[in-house]
């Protein structure tokens, strides 16, 4: 915990996780996998928040992580409900199939 390089390396880890999540959002074409990659990006952000909180010596960053988790839970619930509705209309989860605005 006292290791001085930890904060810097945690920021690097958050960068890598966020980048991998972004890559996944662009590469995958399954709706559920894309949602999971968004969760990965949110986790990268959380790592950065905790690292900054550790560097600043205050707990505000951790409170933000708490709220990010709440929003992530709400996002997953609504997002997966939308996925179920999409699967009902098109019978597929391929993102390319949902390119039209009309049902």
């Amino acid at each position, binding site marked *: *915990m*006292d*290791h001085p390089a*930890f*904060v*810097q*390396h*945690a*920021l690097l*880890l958050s*960068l*890598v*996780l*966020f*980048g*991998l*999540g*972004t*890559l*996944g959002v*662009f*590469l*995958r*074409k*399954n709706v*559920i*996998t894309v949602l*999971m*990659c968004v*969760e990965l990006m949110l*986790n990268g952000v*959380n*790592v950065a928040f*905790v*690292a900054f*909180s*550790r*560097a*600043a*010596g205050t*707990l*505000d960053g*951790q*409170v933000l*992580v*708490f709220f990010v*988790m*709440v929003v*992530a*839970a*709400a996002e*997953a*619930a*609504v997002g*997966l*409900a*939308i*996925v179920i509705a999409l699967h009902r209309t098109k019978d597929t*989860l*391929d993102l390319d199939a949902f390119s039209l605005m009309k049902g």
Partner: protein
Amino acid sequence: MDAILFYVFAAIAVASAVVVIGQRNPMYSAFALIVTLCSVSVIFAVLGSPFIAALQVIVYAGAIMVLFLFVLMLLSVKREEDTPGRGGRTLRGVALALVTLLVLQAGAVLLRHGTEPAPQFDASTRKMAQILFSAHFLYVFEATSILILAALVGAVVLAKKEL
């Protein structure tokens, strides 16, 4: 000891994140994501945040991932198939992700000063609760309950066949 834990679990987190985006079967992606989330929880613990580490396992690896797996099994998702003419899009995706990474890296370089850990750091659950229920965050905390309620109602409305 902390250093070993930090670097080992950082490596596991990155490796399983690569599996998440590299797998064509969403079920394998989901399980790899669970491994990532648990490793990140260890990182939180090493950084001195036991409360957030516990929340990470309970809320993320527990509740959210169970929701994902539930929907995956409910819809019996198949493996992704190759579609012709997707190579260009893959290339553009990689380029966009790299640009995002570079922009973030630039920000991290600008922030390089001031990332020494603070000498005094107490992130116990008691301290967290005191801050969370202080005048600063109390109303935000209460607002999240409204958000959760809205998400609950929204999810039911969206997933229901006929209202």
